[in-house]
């Protein structure tokens, strides 16, 4: 059912766990489909003075796809500026994972929303 890349992220999720004193937290979820995602950000400033994601961690209650997509989005976002990160689309998450079953595409979408929410949380 799942691609090798999805299974790799499920077996060994990247950047998984809590972050102490994060600069921002983004939390999204849907009890109906059973996925809850939480992203923690540590935000730094680069030499141009732009905000960038120095460190990122996630916690996800959800299916294999939900765990793999959050793991993947932390990889895609780490070290990037806010400007770059906000360009990440759910299709990018899917493509990076090889593929996702159609019914699981919303997981990729949810992971993008979690990231946006975390950035919004920082700006507030």
């Amino acid at each position, binding site marked *: 059912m*799942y691609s090798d890349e999805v299974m790799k992220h*499920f*077996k060994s*999720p990247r950047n*998984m*766990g*809590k972050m102490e004193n994060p600069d921002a937290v983004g*939390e*999204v*979820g*849907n*009890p*109906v*489909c*059973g*996925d*809850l995602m*939480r992203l923690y950000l540590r935000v730094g400033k680069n030499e141009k003075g732009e905000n960038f994601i120095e460190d990122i961690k996630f*916690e*996800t*209650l*959800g*299916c*294999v*796809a*939900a*765990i793999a997509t959050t793991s993947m989005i932390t990889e895609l976002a780490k070290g990037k500026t806010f400007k770059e990160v906000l360009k990440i689309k759910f299709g990018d998450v899917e493509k990076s994972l090889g593929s996702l079953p159609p*019914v*699981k595409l*919303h997981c990729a*979408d*949810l992971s993008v*929303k979690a990231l946006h*929410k975390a950035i919004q949380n920082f700006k507030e």
Partner: protein
Amino acid sequence: MSQNKRIYLDYAATTPVDPEVFEAMRPYFAEKFGNASSIHQFGVEAQEGIVLARRQVADFLGCDSKEIIFTSGATEGNNTIIKGIGSNKNLTGGKKPHIIVSSIEHDCVLGSAEYLKENDLAEITFLPVNKEGLAEIGELEKSIKDNTVLVSVMYANNEIGAIQPAREIGALIKKLNENRSQKIYFHTDAAQAVNYLDCDVKRIGADFMTISAHKIYGPKGVGALFVRQGSPFSRLMNGGEQEFKMRAGTHNTPGIVGLGAAIEKVKKQGSQIEKTKNQRDRLISGIFDKISGSALNGSRDNRLPNNANFRFEGVEGESLLVSLDMEGIAVSTGSACAAKSLSPSHVLLAIGLNHLQSHSSIRFSLGRLTEDSDIDRVVSLMPKIIERLRSISGNLEGGTVERGKLPDDFGC
């Protein structure tokens, strides 16, 4: 994938064909291949296999051979009864019929009922169940109307194994029918029950009963429908005169023979059920001992002896299923994340679980080939798997997530 022996704990989904059943079927593929409707010797030897199987099934159900119609399985049987009786206006003098189905029926019953409703062919009551997953007689009695033609309550539930009060329902309907001009018929889907429970149709008081071969170590694609003599039943398939002109189509001889042989084996399984029940109880106590935040879904006592359906706080069912599969252990989940739709099991919602609890559920269903060591292996692996998933979800304590505290709902 793990190098260990694979462990199958999904017998409620399907069972392997028993070797004796397979042997009984074997001649009917290439040797006794005749069309059972043909008059020549080839046809006669095929027909003999069907006659024997019909007797074997009838004997098990305590009915006459003429009351058994072979089908392609439980889905066909259930569709036939719900749609056929549910839309039969002759029973109600032209008025739209009313049928009652329990809210934890298999999708093929619920889907058939929804079909009748959507096409304005019948009025439907979805009978609720209590927290244990049991239909309540009082509730059933209250939902009976003048135009009620059919009550369909499964004998045992496929997900949580809840054994329904089928005999009490049969007795209630019999009593009600004494004072009604318009008879109520009682149908029960016994697909999950045959291997474990007394399926005598007279003792249950059923007018219709659906059974399936592949749940009882028989082949897939074959089942039977008990239709009490004198019950209204209109043919579903037009064509030949097979099955007392009720269901046209060349007989699936090997399948039908396999169903008969599988039922014979059920009659002779002796202490097997007790063995299964003991293994299941070991599984339940092992899980409860070792894993906090775990609970059993459905009734502890009114439960099929091979079923254990758990939920684990802070864990999602599909992740758990896939984690077990990586170890070679096969189970099922009530989480829709493993299915095509996104809403969790209607059965788990019907017993009062919230969506998150339903998503956190998995079903173990044991069977004849389950060994004690399989249970030990599951019990020893589960704590590590649950701990890993809880560490990913940030819910190591296995605490309850309150619905009110959930973050924004972005939809699925």
